């Protein structure tokens, strides 16, 4: 079977299961250019890149320099390769990758917008890139000034009073915000140990609550997909520290009762934590501060166009209202006659959550993004993101109806009847999209929608790109009815075909072992 052959050749880069077979296309006489052997497999004893030091001064005696205690002689099988081999290895891997720089990447909830090169250029300025994190404040005034300006910009965008740039990612921002909520109630002499979370929440929300020592109470969203103030009132008690809610929520719809919900919370002494994961819908259009939020975390790697995941670390600043400012992580930026300095004089601070000043390179990129677009540009970006999501939703309506009747914000959640009609699952549709050179949307989330396809085009795509995505989705719908097996066994054009996710999760092989003859 053709699909099997592909699986086998792809096994060389998979290695996720012990069944992975070495390349079998050798039968055809030539190696598959798409198969990438491991560095270990390409190794040959004595091979290396240029080693100027060894030629000029001879092989150094490591044990004499470092002491025998710091030298290991038990590392064997370390890969030995020439420089071109290493270069080709990593470039080939990068070509097999899916990424925003290669393809349309409508991965819902993740805001995979284009990361402008200008931001990288700014972060690479030697004064920023070469700055050692231990540099004393009086020699790092420019960097501190940039952080102060970014804090002010984020406070303006969110409608909040004070900002910490420390958290290294969205989830760490959530933890920071929740630890602050705990410290706030503790300071007021109230032991509140519960946090309300809607059933549409991202999984990180309950995880962060548990990590911060809270008990999670689940609020049910209504049939239209949003949270009602009545439901929050029903769950409120003097034990509730906060409600943690994402707005727009994970169905991509704006929470219309957010102000009434904030009022109900504040009446009972509880806080409103607004998860800013979906802020890409709101820039310059609506401010969490105006909705009554006490704490907001932002994901710079989503909304402010800094790279995701393997492309660079995240950044999850936290913005708060005045009454929570004393609890922000310290040190904070302070200013006196000598200029900017790191101020440790915050006795109620929850302390440090991250070494140094957060992921500084991301802060430079985000600030560059904000300046390049300006206030009106940011609002336009959000409006375009909303337009793109609604355009896709409307055009796909006949085949993939929306999970909700409410208007979509920056992303839409769609469903389909292919499971019933053709035994083709949401996962199959997602896999088939890969054959069209499109990264699949988020699937099976939010959990309240059966077989969900969550599509977030972002503001950076052209109408032609959106149209080609719609065309691919329509084609897949037709294929599912005319040739369901083809969709069920997709992808067919990639180096790797369908991987066995269940097997990889049940029996993961996390360490490569050399096969000795």
């Amino acid at each position, binding site marked *: 079977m053709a699909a099997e052959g592909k699986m086998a050749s792809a096994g060389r880069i998979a290695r996720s299961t012990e069944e992975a077979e070495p390349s079998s296309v050798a039968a055809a006489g030539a190696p598959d250019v798409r198969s990438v052997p491991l560095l270990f497999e390409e190794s040959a004893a004595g091979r290396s890149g240029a080693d100027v030091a060894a030629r000029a001064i001879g092989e150094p005696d490591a044990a004499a320099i470092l002491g025998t205690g710091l030298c290991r002689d038990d590392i064997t099988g370390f890969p030995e390769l020439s420089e071109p081999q290493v270069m080709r290895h990593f470039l080939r891997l990068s070509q097999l990758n899916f990424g925003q720089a290669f393809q349309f990447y409508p991965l819902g909830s993740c805001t995979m917008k284009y990361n402008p090169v200008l931001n990288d250029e700014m972060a690479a300025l030697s004064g920023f890139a070469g700055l050692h994190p231990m540099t004393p404040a009086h020699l790092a005034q420019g960097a501190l000034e940039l952080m102060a300006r970014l804090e002010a910009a984020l406070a303006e965008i969110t409608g909040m009073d004070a900002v910490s740039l420390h958290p290294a990612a969205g989830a760490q921002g959530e933890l920071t915000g929740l630890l602050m909520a705990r410290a706030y109630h503790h300071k007021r002499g109230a032991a509140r140990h519960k946090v309300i979370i809607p059933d549409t929440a991202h*999984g990180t929300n309950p995880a962060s609550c548990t990590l911060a020592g809270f008990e999670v109470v689940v609020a049910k969203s209504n049939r239209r997909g949003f949270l009602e103030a009545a439901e929050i009132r029903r769950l409120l008690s003097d034990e509730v520290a906060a409600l943690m809610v994402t707005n727009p929520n994970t169905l991509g719809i704006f929470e219309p009762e957010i102000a009434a919900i904030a009022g109900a919370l504040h009446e009972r002494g509880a806080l409103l934590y607004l998860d800013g994961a979906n802020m890409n819908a709101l820039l310059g259009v609506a401010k969490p501060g105006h909705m009554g939020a006490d704490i907001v975390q932002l994901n710079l790697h989503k909304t402010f166009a800094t790279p995701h995941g393997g492309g660079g670390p995240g950044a999850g600043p936290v913005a708060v209202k005045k009454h929570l400012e004393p609890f922000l992580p310290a040190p904070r930026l302070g200013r006196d006659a000598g200029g900017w300095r790191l101020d440790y004089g915050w006795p109620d601070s929850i302390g440090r959550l991250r070494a140094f000043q957060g992921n500084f390179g991301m802060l430079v990129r985000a600030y560059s993004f904000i300046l390049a677009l300006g206030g009106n540009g940011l609002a336009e970006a959000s409006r375009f993101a909303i337009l793109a999501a609604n355009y896709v939703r409307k055009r796909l309506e006949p085949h993939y109806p929306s999970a909700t009747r409410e208007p979509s914000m920056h992303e839409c959640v769609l469903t389909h009847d292919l499971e*019933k009609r053709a035994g083709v699952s949401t*996962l199959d549709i997602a896999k088939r999209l890969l054959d069209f050179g499109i990264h699949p949307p988020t699937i*099976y*989330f939010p*959990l309240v929608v059966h077989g969900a396809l969550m599509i977030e085009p972002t503001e950076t795509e052209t109408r032609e790109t959106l149209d080609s995505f719609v065309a691919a989705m329509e084609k897949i719908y037709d294929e599912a009815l005319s040739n369901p097996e083809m969709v069920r066994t997709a992808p067919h054009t990639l180096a790797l075909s369908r991987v066995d*996710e*269940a097997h990889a*999760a*049940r029996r993961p092989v996390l360490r490569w072992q050399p096969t000795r003859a």
Partner: protein
Amino acid sequence: MEVPPGLKYSKEHEWVTAEESVATIGITDHAQDQLGEIVYIELPSVGEKISKDDPFGVVESVKAVSDIYAPISGTVAEVNEGLRESPEVINEDPYGDGWLIKIRVSDSSELDDLMDNEEYEEMVAKEKE
């Protein structure tokens, strides 16, 4: 979808043997089908008390992580230890070898609140609409 008669069913898609002293609990065929391939299961320990409608375990599939709710209250008497190594048995045989726990029933009248096979089938059919 298989819904054997003689068992009691909960709204959260668990089944329970309608026995008065020790009852066996598992998830339904419909539940395992909706979850997809199960890769991990978290179950309580023997001696733990579980109460009706509260989560007593967690099931993780390639699609999602879900709580498992107690259809009735009781004390855990036995746990299907084999599932820790081979959670796929739940997919393969949800009403047989894929059982989750056995409990000493604390209030057998709670069984009356659950559905029989026909009522459960009707509920699932409605959910699908």
